[in-house]
Structure formats: structure tokens, C-alpha cells
């Protein structure tokens, strides 16, 4: 039954090469920790992706309760944390995951750097990687405001003040992020939109480019 359906689809779309390409590519010995323990450094990229998936899933569940306005934001987080079954765990995963993903990404960047894997022909993948890095920092910054407690509020206020001190562009960045005279209702909805739609969209596009390039070029050879 499954096979017939598969064949039916395959006949029309020729999907076999797509997944066979992913499935059949060989993992060379020098990146496989089963053969060389030190190759665990090559796992950091995969682990970053794993945590990123956790972030996306837990974030999707958080938005089922979170209300992005200044009156209800704190209350909805509080409710989720204390009243909703497993809400504390979902929020905890998203909260600690945000730090963990930065750590993993950092380790991954260091492994790529110190193995010189950014060199020709992989320059573009490094640049895409750095863009991912900035997107991740942006996600961290915008997400921090959302619980709307004092820590969130004042960190954002300071962050926007710092952005504002950039010459020429500063006031525009401030306006774009803050959306008004003070950090307030507008800021919260903007940060929510950026955190939940803009940056994840950009992140997924960049990750797609990252993985396509890795498949296309293969992992860098042994040192």
C-alpha cells in the first residue's frame, strides 16, 4: 500500500534522487566520532540544528498561550509557567535552549574556524554561517523582552539606547525597534513580530542555504 503510493508519487515527481542524495552520501571516517573520538567537534553543527529545532517547536507551543501586549504579556507568561500542564517545561526548554543554542553555535563556529574549513571553496558557507550567527543574536535580543518583566524591560531599554548611539543610523534603528517615544506597547508588538516571524523566516532561509552548500560541497577533508 505504502509502496504503491510512493511509486505513484515518484512516477510523477521523481522524488527518489532527492532523498537518496541525503540518505546515501557517505560520512567520511575523519568526522565520525565512532572512529576518532576527537571528531566529536564535528557534531556541534548537528547539535546546533537539534537545539534550533527544539527552539522552533517549543516556541510554537509558547505562542499558543503568549499574548503580545503590555497588559497581558506578563500575565500570560505567568499563567503558562504556573498553571498550564507542562507549561513550565515548555517555557524552560525555550529559555535554556536559547542559551544552549548560542553555546553550540559558538563551539561549531570555533571548530570551523580552527579546522580552517572556511577556506576555499567554502567561503560562502562561512559568510552564510555568520549571518545565521547574527540572526541568532537578534532572536536572543528580541526574545528577552517578551516576558515583560523588569529584567526584560530594562535590558531592552539599554540595548536600544546603545543602538541609538550609532552615528547617523542610530535614531532610525531606535525608531524601527522601539516604534514610539519610549519602550512600550509598540516595542513589545514589534519585538514579538520580529522574534516570531521575521527572524525565524530569515533563519530558515539561511539554514536551507547552509545545508544545501554542505551537501553540494561535502564536509571539508581531513587535516
Amino acid at each position: 500500500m505504502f509502496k504503491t503510493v510512493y511509486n505513484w508519487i515518484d512516477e510523477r515527481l521523481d522524488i527518489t534522487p532527492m532523498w537518496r542524495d541525503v540518505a546515501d552520501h557517505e560520512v567520511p571516517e575523519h568526522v565520525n566520532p565512532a572512529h576518532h573520538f576527537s571528531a566529536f567537534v564535528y557534531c556541534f553543527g548537528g547539535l546546533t540544528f537539534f537545539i534550533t529545532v527544539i527552539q522552533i517547536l517549543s516556541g510554537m507551543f509558547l505562542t499558543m498561550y503568549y499574548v503580545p501586549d503590555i497588559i497581558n504579556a506578563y500575565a500570560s507568561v505567568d499563567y503558562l509557567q504556573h498553571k498550564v500542564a507542562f507549561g513550565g517545561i515548555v517555557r524552560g526548554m525555550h529559555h535554556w535552549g536559547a542559551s544552549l543554542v548560542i553555546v553550540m553555535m559558538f563551539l561549531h563556529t570555533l571548530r570551523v574556524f580552527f579546522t580552517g574549513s572556511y577556506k576555499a571553496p567554502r567561503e560562502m558557507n562561512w559568510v552564510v554561517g555568520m549571518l545565521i550567527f547574527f540572526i541568532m543574536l537578534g532572536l536572543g535580543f528580541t526574545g528577552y523582552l517578551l516576558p515583560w518583566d523588569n529584567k526584560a524591560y530594562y535590558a531592552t531599554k539599554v540595548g536600544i539606547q546603545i543602538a541609538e548611539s550609532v552615528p547617523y543610523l542610530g535614531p532610525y534603528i531606535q525608531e524601527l525597534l522601539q516604534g514610539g517615544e519610549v519602550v512600550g506597547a509598540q516595542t513589545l508588538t514589534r519585538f514579538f513580530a520580529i522574534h516570531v516571524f521575521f527572524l525565524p523566516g530569515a533563519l530558515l532561509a539561511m539554514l536551507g542555504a547552509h545545508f544545501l552548500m554542505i551537501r553540494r560541497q561535502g564536509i571539508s577533508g581531513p587535516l
Partner: protein
Amino acid sequence: MSESYKAKERVVYVGDSRVRKGNMPNVPADYTSYPGKSEAFIPNFLLKEWMVGCVVLVGFLVLTITHPAPLGYPADPTNGAFIPMPDWYFLFIYQLLKYPYLSENYVVLGTIGIPGIAFGALLLAPFLDTGKERRFYRRPIASSLMILSLIACVYLTKVSWDHYTHELEKTNTIPEHIEREEKAREAAMAGQERPNYTKQPELPAVVDAGDPATSIIQAQCLSCHGTEYEGRGNIPPLRGVGDKYSKEEIAEIVTNGRGGMPAFGEGKGGNVELSAEEIDQVSTWLAKQKAAAE
């Protein structure tokens, strides 16, 4: 190194990648340039990777269950005493901006000068470090720059954190999320409900709103205490003060001030001075603000 295999191959690859020089259809080629114990991605390698993933996931879940995500008190824009604290991975740049030559008049250096050079160099690393050598110990400049920046980031983060803890100690502050959790625990021990910071407590109604004393209060006090006597931020409401203080106590607070509350007594150095008679009127009226009198 893969270079040596190249000559024997008929197909020429771009660098050590799987991409053939010239046009090619996207057909997976095998990894013959790295002979050895390579294995297929699915299922051999992926299954192992998933085992690692499971271990990580269990560790991670243990962390989230033992350490609930912190939450402080609701944001209060009028709270001037709160010590701002960004997330840990921004601390290095936060600290950087505190140094005199990177802030105030030189803030351009701090916001885009140094970070711009550092992150710009990182972004463009492949175009700055173009040699063929990949091993880090054969790339002394790139590697030492990276190690130096790492040390600098760790150092700045540590200084920033120490600074924060020091400031907490100096002002005798417990971080809000910790204080909040402790209060919740105390309430739970005492068998009470967890304190709820999201609902404003029901304030008692204003008693005798037409009294002449209210015109003084409206003029002098409500800019701080809220136009509906409801309080604002850290400033306590005036509704229901009669339950907390006697008339004499209120007169004492109004005359001499207390904390953020200015003194209104004559010759007490406040901006606004009320006569003893006015203060008496005001305190008499405030002392009547009792929930029980409703």
C-alpha cells in the same frame, strides 16, 4: 591531504569538495577521495547521531525541570532603581561600552569601531585569510587573533558579571526572579496561595470624595499618587491609607516626608509647603480612607 588523490582521478573536483569542476547534474558521488571507514549517512550514521541526540535531550530536560525559567516582577517603567542586565552572551559588549574611551564622546568606537572591526573580520575571514593551509597551528596570525578575542570576551563577560553581583550586594538587592520564587515558596509552606502579581489588588473606594481637603490633595499629591488615588509604580495608593495609619501618623509622613515622599511641612525644605492647618485637613481626610467604612 586530498591533493595527492587528485592527479589519479579522472573527474576533477573543486578543492576537496564533491563538486566537480564544470557542469554536473546533482548525482551523489561517493567519497573515494577519502578512503577509510566511511559509512552511509542513513541509516548507519544518523542512528548513532540520534543516540547522541537522546543523551543531550535527557540532560537538557533534567536541566529544565530542575531549573525553572526565571520570571521577575511585571515591567514597571517608573522603577528607577532596577539594575539592567542583558542576557549573558551580550555581556562582553555591554562591558566594553563601559570603558571611558569607548563611551560618552568616544561611543562610536565602542558601538561600531571595535565590534565592527571584530565582527567584520570574522564575517570576511575567508577573504582575509586566503592561504591554503588549514591547520590552526600553521596559521599563527588567524589563530592567535581568534584566541586573543576569545580571551577578551571571556574576560569582559566575567568583569561585567562581577560588576553586577557587586552592585547587587552594594544596594542589598535580591534579583527579582529569585525573590519572587522565594516568596512563592514561603507562601506554599504556609499553605497559602502563590502571590499573584498580575492582578491589581482591589482598592477600597474613595470615602467622602467631595471634602474640601481633596482640592489640596488633587493639586499637590495626585501627580505622584495617581489621579484616582490608586498609586503608581512604587508609590503607594492613598485609597485605604486609613487602614494602615492613624491621622497623627499620616500628618507625620506628610510633614516630614519619608523615602521618596517629599516633606510638605513648613520649613522642612520641601518645594511645596503646606500650613499646619492644611496638613491637618489632609490627614483628617486621609485617615477616613478605610475599606471598612464602605
